């Protein structure tokens, strides 16, 4: 109880309670994440169950009864008669899973390399940071496509659909670790010269222990901000790759895949197939991004 009331009184919580943008963003994020997590219970249909699909329901307009079956779909149906609302919920699961996992992967890789580069210095640092620099000169999406292409070449054909999600995660993660590494290296360089680190060296702690126990916790707050903003970027990157047809396979459609499917019908008048997944993607990416912006300000002692 005491910890709870202390948390309530903290600057962090105060800043949250006084930022309408943060509250609304968090609300949207929570709503979307929860409905994605609970999709099997929330969604009115299971778009992956062919038995529940009725081709007669294809191209039903939103909120209007279908001409043949008289069924009503909130957000309409696509060409296969799949409920767009349900496909969005299921699609978000894929998008969020890929986004979170890719950021986690990038975070672990980037923070580890950044810590080592900053603490070790010398050749280790030069090698790691030059690799990072070189990678930065390529657009992230190009790196991701390159990795995706290579992975596709070396995985067996019958495994491709299963592997696609993981390849996507690795591709996005690998194109995203650089900023974690750069920020962590910079922060490590600052912390390393502080006297408490010298003191830890003096009492005989080994470099690994110093990095993990003393430096890592002190460089984590910028990492948290980058991770949040990266999440929005990773979700968009996933959608981009899927839109380009190199991401999530049609058997496991993410928001990007849905948008790709939908854009084929945009000019024949079935606007709802692309519009609603696109709005969801926009809402998700925007609210995560705004949350990240607020977090950056809230964690920045200079802006208090």
């Amino acid at each position, binding site marked *: 109880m005491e910890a709870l009331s202390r948390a309530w009184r903290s600057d962090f919580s105060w800043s949250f309670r006084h930022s309408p943008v943060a509250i609304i963003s968090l609300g949207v994020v929570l709503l979307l994440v929860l409905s994605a997590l609970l999709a099997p219970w929330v969604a009115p249909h299971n778009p992956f169950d062919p038995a529940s699909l009725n081709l007669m329901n294809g191209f039903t307009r939103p909120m209007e009864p279908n001409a043949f079956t008289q069924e009503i779909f909130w957000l309409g149906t696509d060409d296969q008669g799949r409920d767009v609302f349900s496909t969005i919920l299921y699609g978000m699961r894929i998008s969020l899973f890929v986004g979170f996992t890719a950021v986690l992967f990038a975070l672990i890789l980037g923070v580890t390399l950044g810590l080592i580069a900053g603490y070790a210095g010398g050749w280790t640092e030069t090698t790691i940071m030059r690799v990072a620099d070189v990678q930065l000169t390529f657009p992230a999406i190009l790196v991701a496509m390159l990795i995706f292409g290579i992975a596709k070449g070396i995985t067996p054909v019958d495994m491709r659909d299963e592997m696609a999600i993981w390849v996507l995660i690795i591709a996005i993660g690998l194109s995203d670790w650089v900023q974690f590494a750069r920020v962590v290296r910079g922060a490590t360089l600052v912390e390393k010269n502080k006297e408490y680190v010298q*003191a830890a060296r003096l009492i005989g702690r080994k470099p690994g222990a110093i990095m993990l126990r003393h430096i890592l916790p002190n460089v984590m707050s910028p990492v948290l901000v980058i991770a949040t903003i990266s999440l929005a970027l990773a979700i968009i990157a996933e959608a981009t790759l899927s839109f380009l047809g190199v991401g999530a396979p049609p058997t496991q459609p993410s928001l990007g895949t849905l948008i790709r499917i939908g854009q084929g019908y945009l000019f024949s008048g079935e606007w709802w197939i692309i519009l609603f997944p696109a709005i969801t993607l926009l809402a998700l990416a925007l609210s995560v991004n705004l949350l990240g912006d607020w977090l950056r300000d809230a964690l920045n002692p200079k802006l208090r």
Partner: protein
Amino acid sequence: MVEPVLSVRGLTVEIPTRHSVLRPVDTVSFDIAAGEILGVVGESGAGKSMTGNAVIGLLDRPAHIAGGEIWLNGERIDQLKGDALRQVRGKHIGMVFQDPLTSLNPLLTIGQQLVETIQVHLDVSGAEAKNRAVNSLNEVGIPAAAERIDAYPHQFSGGMRQRVVIALALCAEPSLIIADEPTTALDVSVQAQIIALLKRLCHERGTAVMLITHDMGVIAEAADRVAVMYAGRMAELGPAREVLTKPAHPYTVGLMGSTPLASAGKERLNQIEGSMPRLDELQPGCAFSPRCPYAQHKCRIEPRPTLEAHEGRAACWLAGEVAE
């Protein structure tokens, strides 16, 4: 004679640069006995801190020990590497840093930091380590130590934090403490308390202290013996009272003359003309000769005499005469 805790002989630290090899510490020799406080004074860049860092083996590349010997409790430590070095310096040397703001990890409670230090050195259980931590906080005069132990560094004032740092340095019962400007970041009233505390604890426990400072007041207050450094070299070394009242090296004379004394009632302070030469601009003769009011031809051409740990007090050709 009792064997000193720390014995430094001809210590030389070099920093290779593109143009030349700099010597921030040049053939420095001194001893510190158990329970004794050696004050090391000199202006910025004189090599005080560099000497301290060389002793604890925390020189950052490219600086390295290029010559001389460092003996701690009869064991030679300047050539130790890796684990052996970690063992020795962690167990036998404690360090009090200048800025108590940065010498404690802001994200760990002071208890966690004390317990970590104790457990690295002494083979004791967690509960015992915590017990010792509370005791050491009590010893440095932190009120309600048992409750304060779970507080974070930012919940302490500067002076209290420096007490915690001293507790941290002392809790592993080292035989030598290197205090690098421990009071520079504190205000004057707290300075006196911290110095008195350091002095009392070290005399009680028989810990040798190397007190690095540029504050003559602190030296006069705390040091048993004084080492005056100039441009990386030892200028004068002797008992505090003698060095302060009857300085033998012209630099020490100048230093004393430029220290404000409330009792002196002077309107203007004397100052030493010029400034300390950069390490890459050292003249062949005595490094102080360009600023020395007594300098003679000999001072400018012949390398100044090296000061040994025991013989003589001042590294000056004119040592005897200047005093008069």
